């Protein structure tokens, strides 16, 4: 465990000594801010409209603001998380430090876990920036806790899936750009995979919808923690990490 943490810390540090962490954190904050203001405006308009119509004056913040906001965030993540993982293996292979890790008394799985936790730590830091915005909502309104927590859990799990796939792809190539672009393409594919389901039969549609990575997030932002979704993200992350470890092993055999 100690050596996994050593690796995770090293990974996290590497993000901060390169501009990556600052660019990702900064731009994420800007984008999240824009979406935040947009959803806030939308909600304000909505509640004004309802006020005029004499309906209920209080619009549910969770339903009309936080949920669409989290939905937008997941799209931002689709673009940004590949940038966290693209250098993960590519850089170590290029600089020869992979040789250090692979000749240290570490198992492949420990190396993968270290890298995963390092990237997750930076991702968690990204998400923690949004707590400020959400905190402001508590100041002026009364959002519910539960859907917020489940929403964050969903974001963490979804981001974890993105990161694990990104690591797997990074471990397969020496080239950072290839790793980044391929990760983005694969994630996008998992996002839109249910779009082609509409014209196919119901079974196909159900399967494709199940595979879609964003489909599973919606319930979390509604405040529902469904085991189907937990299983989905859990298996997705496991599969990604397993593939990474396997690809490290295969790289070893192919020299």
């Amino acid at each position, binding site marked *: 465990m100690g*050596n996994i943490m050593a690796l995770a810390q090293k990974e996290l540090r*590497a993000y901060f000594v390169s501009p990556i962490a600052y660019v990702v954190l900064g731009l994420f904050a800007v984008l999240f801010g824009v979406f935040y203001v947009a959803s806030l405006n939308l909600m304000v308009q909505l509640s004004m409209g309802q006020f005029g119509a004499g309906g209920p004056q209080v619009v549910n913040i969770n339903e009309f603001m936080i949920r669409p906001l989290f939905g937008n965030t997941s799209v931002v993540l689709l673009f940004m998380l590949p940038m966290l993982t693209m250098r993960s293996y590519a850089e170590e292979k290029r600089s*020869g*430090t992979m*040789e250090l890790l692979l*000749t240290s*008394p570490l198992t492949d799985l420990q190396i993968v876990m270290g890298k995963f936790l390092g990237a997750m730590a930076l991702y968690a830091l990204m998400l923690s920036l949004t707590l400020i915005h959400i905190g402001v909502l508590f100041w002026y309104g009364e959002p519910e806790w539960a859907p917020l927590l489940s929403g964050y859990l969903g974001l963490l799990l979804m981001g974890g899936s993105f990161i694990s796939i990104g690591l797997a792809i990074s471990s397969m190539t020496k080239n950072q750009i290839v790793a980044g672009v391929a990760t983005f393409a694969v994630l996008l594919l998992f996002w839109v995979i249910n779009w082609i389901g509409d014209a196919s039969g119901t079974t196909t549609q159900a399967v494709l919808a199940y595979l879609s990575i964003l489909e599973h997030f919606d319930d979390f932002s509604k405040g529902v923690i469904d085991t189907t979704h937990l299983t989905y993200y859990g298996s997705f992350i496991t599969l990604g990490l397993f593939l990474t470890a396997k690809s490290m092993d295969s790289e070893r055999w192919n020299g």
Partner: protein
Amino acid sequence: MVEVQHVTKRYGSLTAVDDISFRVERGEILGFLGPNGAGKTTTMRILTGYLPATEGLARVAGFDVFEQSVEAKRRTGYLPETPPLYPEMTVIEYLRFVARINGVPASDRQTQIGLAMERTNVADMADRYCGTLSKGYRQRVGLAQAILHNPEVLILDEPTAGLDPRQIIETRKLIAELAGDHTIILSTHILPEVSQTCQRVIIINRGRVVAVDTPGNLTARLQGSQTLYLQVDTQGADPISSLEGVAGVVSVTVAAQQDGVAGYHVESGSGDDVRREVSRTIVANGWGLLELRPQQMSLEDVFLHLTTEDEAAGGSEAAEDATLDGPDEDAGETATEERTDG
């Protein structure tokens, strides 16, 4: 301590290492000698568990490097050809990281790091970023990294590459010091290094072991015959037949030729001192004897001899390309370089 049995490594159709076997005893320094591309690095990578062997078995400190790789790796310190440094870490941070992934207990970490830095002379660079270090310091931080967890076996891939002469001497001294309680395997293509630091040498070429012996024995082995180098002004005549007529001379070959002045290698059986007869013959023929000296077989010659013997053709002509100044070390080095490029 280290045991390699019939190890073969193939990349597709290319055989990088072909059925290599050897043993290294505790406390011994073994030199791995061979031209670039001979399979030195591949063998070392197999020993460190970085690459799996296609066939064969390798054990480090009693642990199979493939089946019990974590145990074997715990007991191995490895300096790869390019020191594996993280440019964004300072030297001390880097060594702390290496100590942690090698499982050095927290209580010992500070002392172990201090000792490694002191031994490799990098303490004054502790707070510098690895990315800004000079080649020599990189190499030494790499060495510090390898000895940090006090491993039983040290595997050093060209440890003196890129160092200046003073640092080379220091590094050799350090290696000699470490040899007491560590078993060391080091590779190099610099020949004097082997005779100075190693107790035993393995010469490998094209993936095969060509010779295993002490540096002394290796040179002695090839001194079954003696060679004289002659430089003669023959005024156009051909002295070969008359030289071959001298009792004890086995063969005469032209080493260099220029404007009627020629250099010859005269080989004679061991124990026969043919110098008197040879000089008498030359003088009797009225030629000018410009130079006559016995040729010492250096480790370089042994190396060339063994590696060219292996290749059957080519290489042996290299000496003949030498100028009249004689086939001294320069010729040897040129020949080595020619082969190492391949």
